[in-house]
C-alpha cells in the first residue's frame, strides 16, 4: 500500500476517533455534480466545522465506469475577518472494497460579499491505470449584495483542465443560492454543461 493511501486511511481513522459531540446543526449536505467527465451524487456529514465524511457515487463518462467512494474533506486552514473568509481544504476518497482506487487533492477559496476566488487540484488514481488529474480556477463577483434569506447571485468564470482531454476550457457560470439550496450552471463550447446542485439539511 502506497504512502498516500496509508495517509488517507489513517486520516479517516484519526478523525473518526477524534469526533467531538455535534454542536452544529446544519451538518448534512447532499450534492449532485455533472460535467463533461463525470456525474456524481455525494452525501456528507460534518461532525464539526473542521471536517466532513461522506459517500460519493461517481459515474466516469470517459472510462464508462462507476465508483463508490468513502470521502473525507478536512479544513486545513481558515482565516476569518469581518469582510472576508479564506479556506484551504484537503479532500480525499477511497473505494472501500478496492483501496487502490483513491483520489486526493486540495481546494481553496477566498470570498468577500462581492468577490470570490477559488481553485482546486485533484489526483484520481485507479487500479487499472485509468488515472487522471483535474484542476480548476474560478473567479466570481456578486452583481448585488443580498441580505440574509434573499436570493443570492454570482457571476463566475471558470477555467479547468484535466489530463484526460489535456485541453483547458474557460467558460462562464451562474451561481444562485437561497436558504439551504445552491445551484450552479456553467456552459462551455468544449465542455458542455457543468452543473452543481447542493442542499444542506
Amino acid at each position, binding site marked *: 500500500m502506497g504512502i498516500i493511501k496509508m495517509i488517507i486511511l489513517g486520516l479517516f481513522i484519526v478523525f473518526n476517533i477524534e469526533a467531538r459531540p455535534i454542536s452544529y446543526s446544519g451538518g448534512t449536505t447532499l450534492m449532485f455534480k455533472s460535467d463533461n467527465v463525470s456525474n456524481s451524487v455525494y452525501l456528507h456529514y460534518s461532525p464539526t466545522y473542521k471536517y466532513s465524511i461522506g459517500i460519493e457515487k461517481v459515474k466516469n463518462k470517459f472510462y464508462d465506469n462507476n465508483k463508490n467512494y468513502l470521502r473525507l474533506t478536512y479544513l486545513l486552514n481558515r482565516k476569518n475577518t469581518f469582510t472576508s473568509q479564506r479556506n484551504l481544504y484537503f479532500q480525499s476518497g477511497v473505494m472501500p472494497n478496492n483501496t487502490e482506487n483513491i483520489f486526493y487533492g486540495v481546494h481553496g477559496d477566498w*470570498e468577500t460579499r462581492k468577490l470570490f476566488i477559488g481553485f482546486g487540484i485533484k489526483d484520481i488514481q485507479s487500479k487499472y491505470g485509468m488515472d487522471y488529474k483535474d484542476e480548476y480556477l474560478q473567479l466570481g463577483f456578486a452583481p448585488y449584495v*443580498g441580505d*440574509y434569506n434573499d436570493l443570492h447571485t454570482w457571476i463566475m468564470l471558470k477555467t479547468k483542465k484535466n489530463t484526460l482531454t489535456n485541453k483547458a476550457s474557460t467558460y462562464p457560470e451562474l451561481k444562485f*443560492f437561497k436558504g439551504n439550496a445552491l445551484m450552479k450552471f456553467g456552459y462551455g463550447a468544449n465542455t458542455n454543461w457543468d452543473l452543481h446542485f447542493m442542499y444542506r439539511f
Partner: protein
Amino acid sequence: MKKILLISLFSGTILVAEPDHEGMHGHSHEGHLHETMVDGKNLNVSAERFDKFMEELTEVNIAIVSVKGMVCDFCARGISKTFLKDKDVEKIDVDLDNGKVLIAFSKSKEIVYAEIEKKILSNGQNMSDLQILEI
C-alpha cells in the same frame, strides 16, 4: 463648589447614559441604532433592522454578536440553526452587512460569552464581541 460641580457632572452622565442602556427599543435613529453604548462601544446595527427584529418581542435580553467570517448567507445558515435549538432563544437575525447576529433570549436565560462564542465557532466563524441589551 467643587462638590456641586462633581455631582452635576455625575448626574449628567447618568441622565445621558441611562436611555441608552435601558431603552434601546424605540430609540433608533435614521441609519443606525443609538450608536454608542454606555461603555463607549459602537453598536453599528441598522436601526430599521433592529426595530423590525424587536417587533412582537417583549421581556427579552438581546445579544448583539459581532462575527468574523460571516460573508455569505449559505455560510451563516448554521448559526441560525444552532441557536434556534436553544429553547430560550425567541428570535434570531443575521445581519451580513454589518457582521452581526441578533439573538433574543428569554429573560430567564443567563447570556454567557463563552457559550455564544462556542456556538459561533462550531459554525466555523469567530466571535469578536458581544453586547447585551436588556429590553
